[in-house]
Structures are given as structure tokens and as C-alpha cells.
């Protein structure tokens, strides 16, 4: 079993709901401090968005953040070098689009991530049918592969994705790209279908923007992922203090 999964299963065994904030690497010069602030405020793992020019599964907030990060010159090498300076041991999960790894080289990407302390990867535009090369490379570097399951995923495919997922399985609460949403979505139903076929920890994400939504989602799952709402705070000029307050408010809500 890969390290990330061992860690997240142990976390679940303590009864604590996982809180996973998402950051866009390189969005601001002090983004590393944001990650540290989140860990300090009780994040159990952190998703690190690696900027790609064409974020097809992301809404306007993350698109804007990615554009800024790219304009600031962020690359896989530069962000990995910065991750290596992190003063916290919070598990890191990379999230990006396949072309980034494909272009850098799969084996080389996985090695780079591992040496920067990354334990997992989410590649939303890589379907399991095409994933075997990446899974081989990531496995040789102890990188867990996390797959997304959506409300529309047919049962057979859902079973396959749940069984392939390592670390946790990502339950998308709605049929949408990342971004804010007011409805509570179909997270519960998706989680229940995953649990029917696998005992992998299952986290709900996509559209969770308030502490109340996070609590609701955490009640039916093992954890929650908070992306756009947090990135918006940083786009608005929020620094490490605001990040810490934001994450702490979610922590209180789901505990």
C-alpha cells in the first residue's frame, strides 16, 4: 500500500474527517507560506495545483489563478524546488493535466514529485484506459493515483475507478467544473456508490465553498476538498493569515 493511503486510512481510523485545501502553486510569491498556514490551521493533506495553460476541468477562479501563476513563470521545476523548502510534513497531492507530466517525462515527473515530498496525484484528463504508463511510473515512486467519480459515472466504471484509486477516491458532488455552488449536490449518493464497492477513504469535492457545506459533506464522507473558495481568498489579496483563518473555520465546522 502506498504511503498516502496508509496515512489517510490511519487518519480515518481516528474518527477525524479529512480537510484538504487546494492551492495553485506559484500564484503568489509567498504561496509556500499559504500551504504552511493551512497545515497549521488543521489541513490533513494539501492539494497542489500545477499550472497548465488549458485547465479544462476548472472554473473561472482557478483559471484566473493558473494564468497568474504561469505569468509569474511557475514551472514544475520551480514549484518542486519551493515545495522542498516546506517546513511542514503535511501530505502533498499534485493536481494537474496530463500534458505537464507527458512533456516532462512520466518517470522523471514521478521522481521529481517524490523528491519534493509529494505522495499523490490527481490527473483529471487522464482516463483509466490510458493511465497504465503513468501508473507504472508513479508506482515506482510511491505516488498514489486518485481518480474522480462523478454523479453520472455508470456503475461498472465507478467500480473500476474506485478500485484503481489509491489514497482516497475523489467524489465529485456535481456535474461541473471547479467553482462555487450553492446547492448541496449529489455527494452523498456518489459516496454511497463508492462505498458499496470499495473501502477506500472517500472525499467530496467540487463546489464546496462554505464551512456549512463542508460539514454537510463530511457527515456523509471521510473528508472534503476545498478549492476555488480558498483560491478566491488569495486572488482577493488574502495572505497567510487569511488562509489560516479560512482553513480554521472549515476545520471547526467539520470537527
Amino acid at each position, binding site marked *: 500500500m502506498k504511503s498516502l493511503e496508509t496515512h489517510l486510512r490511519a487518519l480515518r481510523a481516528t474518527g477525524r474527517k479529512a480537510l484538504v485545501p487546494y492551492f495553485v502553486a506559484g500564484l503568489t510569491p509567498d504561496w509556500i507560506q499559504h500551504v504552511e498556514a493551512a497545515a497549521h490551521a488543521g489541513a490533513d493533506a494539501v492539494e497542489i495545483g500545477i499550472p497548465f495553460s*488549458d485547465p479544462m476541468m476548472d472554473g*473561472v477562479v482557478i483559471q484566473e489563478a493558473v*494564468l497568474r501563476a*504561469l505569468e509569474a513563470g511557475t514551472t514544475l521545476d520551480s514549484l518542486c524546488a519551493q515545495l522542498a523548502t516546506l517546513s511542514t510534513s503535511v501530505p502533498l497531492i499534485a493536481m494537474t493535466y496530463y*500534458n*505537464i507530466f507527458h512533456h516532462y517525462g512520466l518517470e522523471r515527473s514521478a521522481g521529481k514529485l517524490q523528491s519534493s515530498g509529494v505522495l499523490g496525484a490527481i490527473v483529471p484528463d487522464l482516463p483509466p484506459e490510458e493511465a497504465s504508463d503513468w501508473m507504472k511510473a508513479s508506482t515506482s515512486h510511491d505516488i498514489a493515483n486518485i481518480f474522480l467519480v462523478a454523479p453520472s459515472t*455508470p456503475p461498472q*466504471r465507478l467500480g473500476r475507478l474506485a478500485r484503481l484509486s489509491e489514497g482516497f477516491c475523489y467524489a465529485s458532488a456535481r456535474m461541473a*467544473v471547479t467553482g462555487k455552488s450553492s446547492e448541496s449536490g449529489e455527494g452523498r449518493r456518489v459516496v454511497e456508490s463508492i462505498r458499496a464497492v470499495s473501502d477506500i477513504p472517500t472525499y467530496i469535492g467540487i463546489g464546496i465553498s462554505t464551512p456549512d457545506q463542508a460539514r454537510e459533506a463530511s457527515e456523509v464522507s471521510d473528508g472534503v476538498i476545498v478549492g476555488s473558495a480558498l483560491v478566491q481568498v488569495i486572488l482577493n489579496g488574502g495572505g497567510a493569515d487569511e488562509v489560516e483563518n479560512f482553513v480554521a473555520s472549515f476545520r471547526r465546522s467539520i470537527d
Partner: protein
Amino acid sequence: MPACLELETAFIDAWRDPSFTNEYRQVLREFAGRPTPVTPLDRLSEQLGIRIFAKREDLAHTGSHKINNVVGQTLLTKRMGKNRVIAETGAGQHGVATATASARLGLECTVYMGEIDTERQALNVFRMELLGATVVPVTSGSRTLKDAVNEAMREWVTCVEDTHYCLGSVMGPHPFPWMVREMQSIIGIEAAQQLKDLGVDTPDMVVACVGGGSNAAGVFAGFANAPTRLVGIEAAGGSAVGKGSPGVLHGMKSLLMQDEFGQIEEAHSISAGLDYPGIGPEHAYLAQSGRAEYFAIGDSDVINALQVLSLSEGIIPALETAHAVAWLLQEAGKEIPLGATVLLNLSGRGDKDVAQVREILRGQR
């Protein structure tokens, strides 16, 4: 991904069902004006010392080959029990064609178009609106075709249940590259027969412009097994074969223009329809295997080619098509041996471009 699997199943089933293919052909005949003629371009041929025939997709309804694909995909939309389509568009030709075919079937239609393209193709925006479509300007990224595709894909995720994504070229995830080629292959199938009727058994060369590559794939399909050189012409500013490397974008693995970090580069072309940093995966394969060859033409030669064809043959081509014309002008007697017989796929008419061309010519004076 499940939506693509659903589409694949539906397409395979429809494409071997005679009631579907008969209806598809009937609509192309009665509504879209097929078959389009093949025209010998006598004066230009004489000027260049080669024998040029043009397959006249500019005479198809809505003014380009795009109608062939959308007639098929909108019929398929209905067959799948969906009542709405979304589409991306660059030059607006695919958007207009989709709006047209949707109006005919009473389907709801939303078209995503880069903001820059909505400006340089303002008349096409109005045409789409007249046809009942909603046009959404896309303000992200380079605000051209690539970003329109991103936005259409983002939208499709939210509405796959009742909506079909009517992709306009031989690109994107499977089954689109294959399905769109099949629906465009009528161009090549017709042209091969028409040339025979004109006494040309096999042309020495078939030339087509390439954005995503649908008109080229369609015309190539009629000559795949013939001893004919297949030539695709890209815009120099959107040349995936010339300047690209293997990559993954929009659900396909193909040749893409990208920087050293794998970030996709923005294409820049005078013609909105060729402003795309990638190319359909089958063209990448044909380029690699050598079965087809690809060359690039820069903006400055395109306007001249448009004028030459207008003056010598009475046909104003689309700026996209003018790239292929420009290559003929440039290579007659070089890559194209004197006396050779060439089939030019005249993918679209230039009416949509005349305002832009007027601006450029005014600026040159």
C-alpha cells in the same frame, strides 16, 4: 468520458443502420446541396502550368464543408434522445453550420466563440443569432478557437444528459476524430468519382488547408489507397506539424505547439479557422508515416492568393482555403511538377472574410 463512450456506441449503431445513413444522405442532398461540383480551374491552371480541379465545398449550404459533419451529428443528437447541442467555433463557419442544422431539427443550440473571433467574424455571430443560436464569447486564454474548445468542454460536463457536444473538426477525444472524418469522407468519395467522370483516373496530388483537419481528412478519404500525394496546408502561426511536438490536449494525443514546459502555445493566424495550436491525431499519424505531407503558409501570402483566385476564376475563397491556394501558387513547378493534376479542396467561400480583407487591403495602400 462516459459521454464519449455513449457517443461511440450511438455512432457505431447509427452508422451501420441504413435508415440513419439514408436520412443523412437525403438531408445532404435536399438541404445542404450535395453533391457539390468539381470545377476545372482553367485560367489558373494555364497560368501555373499545372491542371487544377476544385472540389466546391464553398457551394454547400452555409458556405463550407462544415455542414456535412453537423448534418450527421445533429441527426445523431436526435437519435440519442437529446434536444440540445453545444459547439465551439473559430471562423464561425462551424457555428453557423451547427446553428443551421439545429434550426432545421428544432434543437436548442449554444455556440462558444473566442472573444477575438466574435470581433473579427461579427457577421457570423449575427447569422448564428438569426438562426436562433446563443453565442457565448469566451474571454479566457488566447480568446480564440482553443479556448472556445476548453469552454465547450467545461460546459458539456455540466449537461451531458440532454446535450450533445457537436465538435467541428477531426480532433478531441475518441470517437470525434473518427466520427467527423467519416461524416466528411463524402467529400473525397464524391470527388474521386467526379474526377473519373472528367477523365482523371487519379489526381497526382490532393491539397487541402488544415486547422483541426476535417476538410482535409474528408477529401483524403477518397484517395487513401490511390497513388496520390496527399498534402495538408497549415497556417504558419498554427503549424502543429511544422512546429509542434507530441502532447495531450482536449482529450487527444497529437502534435501540439507547446513550450519547453508543456504549456500550450497560442496560435496566431489571419484566419480564425486555422488559429489552433493542434491538429487532429490522424493527421499527426499520416505525417509521421509519410502518407501525407504538411506545409505551412504565412499570413502575407494568403491575401494575395485570395485575390488571385477571385480574379482568375471568379471564386472568392475563405481565408482558410486561401492557404491551400497560396501553396499552389508558390509550389507550381517546384513541389508540384509542371503538368501535374491537382485536386484542390475548396473548403469554403470568402464572404465571411471580405470585411477583414478590405481592412487589410486598405492598410496596405
